[in-house]
């Protein structure tokens, strides 16, 4: 197991009122991601617990692109990765942000 942590400053805080959301499942080739609105302002932290070592550079780019695209300010995101591929990671992150941007608690 390798734990990676990425800290970004988003362009703005993510809209919506939802405090937390969980997407995906823990399983081979899949991943589970927990989204929590617990950080101040535009800060965004993504923590990745991954079973596959040596993909730090790939993760770093996937997450940088994600932050640039969705501006998830205020979120701490915790990912448990079952060896998921970048496309699955990107999809789960998009799904989580979509849930968090919902107006309803």
């Amino acid at each position, binding site marked *: 197991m390798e734990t990676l942590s990425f800290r970004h400053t988003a362009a703005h805080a993510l809209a919506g009122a939802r405090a937390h959301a969980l997407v995906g499942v823990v399983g081979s080739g899949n991943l589970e991601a927990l989204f929590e609105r617990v950080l101040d302002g535009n800060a965004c932290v993504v923590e990745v617990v991954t079973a*596959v070592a040596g993909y730090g550079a*790939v993760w770093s780019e996937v997450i940088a692109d994600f932050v640039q695209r969705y501006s998830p300010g205020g979120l701490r995101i915790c990912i448990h990765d079952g060896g998921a*591929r*970048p*496309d*699955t990671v990107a999809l789960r992150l998009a799904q989580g942000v*979509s849930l968090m941007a919902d107006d309803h608690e």
Partner: protein
Amino acid sequence: MSWQQRRGERNERLGAGSRFTNGKIIRAGEATALLEAVLRPGDRVCLEGDNQKQADHLAKALLACDPARVHDLHLVQSGIVLPAHLDLFERRIARRLDFSYSGPQSTRMARMLQAGQIELGAVHTYLELFARYFVDLTPAVALIAAVSADRDGNLYTGPNTEDTPTIVEATAFRDGIVIAQANEIVERVPRVDIPGDQVHFIAPAPAPFFVEPLFTRDPAAITETQILMAMLVIKGIYAPYGIERLNHGIGFGTAAIELILPTYGESLGLKGRIARRWALNPHPTLIPAIESGWVEQVHCFGSEVGMEAYLAARPDVFFTGSDGSLRSNRAYCQTAGLYACDLFIGSTLQIDPAGHSSTVTLSRVAGFGGAPNMGSDPRGRRHPSASWLKAGREAHRGGDAALMRGRKLVVQLVETFGEKLIPTFVEQLDAVQFGARLGLGLAPVMVYGDDVSHIVTEEGIANLLLCRDADEREQAIRGVAGYTEVGRRRDRAAVARLRQRGVIQRPEDLGIDPLDADRSLLAARSIRDLVRWSGGLYRPPARYRNW
């Protein structure tokens, strides 16, 4: 000087073999003895190994031959599928090989080739190997598989006719010997797939020949990424080009396309406008589209285990014989895929920045099957269609427009990473190193880059027809290669310019939200759903039944 030397040799072989038969029927337990009598060292032999059905009884009988008597055979067959096919090389009964497809034996094949245990001629596409049967790879002896035979040698092949008529044509009409295994000997065959005067000996088989359910994909295993890619293909390629006539390679990506035609395709108003006529194996995942009235006609290379009753009940869609069951024919269907289809879409294991692709890697030699044929632009085509002309206009680079060629669409549908995070995009194909190491004189490339029109990944569509030079092409490919090394080395500014010109289209450029790529779009989400769609006519093999 004799002009009938071959005929004389054939008659000698027939005489030697007839000691082990009653009429044409080989006596029980004497198949190996007959083969030892008929075969000569160095013979070119087709041991029918098709994409699907296997002459497994005759393979066993051949393997049991005494290598002191039967050796150095040259196998010329489309499929290396059974372990026995490779055992023949280990026992030195066979020495040289020309083939097309070796999916189930791909790992052992790679090992044996690299150890020098097999002298490889070439890895062919089906139609190319069949063509060589008539020019320089004509079999002296063909060992083929049938469902039933009568005493005159008439054969019924059932739905899996596949390669048999082609093999027999080349062998029987060039004074070769045709030996068929048959599941049963009957008074009268249900239909004559091979006329008896082309068949010399019949071996009753102790068990029905082996057929692999190669074309069954369980909808339960289709991912959201594959559904997203299927949406890109339908909205970004099938719709704008108006693709009516097509071929799908096998894979979860193409299965996803088939399964969202009646849902997503319907919602785009495309029913009756796309995907009407097919050169295709009977994919179970096409059942919902057929039942929803999308599909007018399908010609098949082979059959599929469990689909027999469904196919027999849909003669308006499928080609069927006087007995009512499917008639498949690989050579004809490959020809149909080459000349009469406007689009091929399939997957591969590796793509390089020039768009060349191959399924040959250093650890796996799966062969090519029909992909290089279907996945190529036929330069002998002369009939127009709207989609062929549209693609031709996109590819046109100056010159007299009145003399413009059309263009077949050849689409590579790949996820940027394969299983175990192995990247699909690579700077150099393993095939290059593999070809050099084995001294093949030709890198085993499956589809050459200049034949590819589009590459589709979860990152979007790269339209290579619109690229004006090699650099643009390379950046278009890197631009959809995602987070692979090849993708991360892209020139971001160049990729942005290509996107502005529509050479690269992202999902959002096509109005597709990746969050809509949901499994609820699949018209069937399980094998059981497919059975239901078929009204119980589709009977999946046991390994796909989990209810």
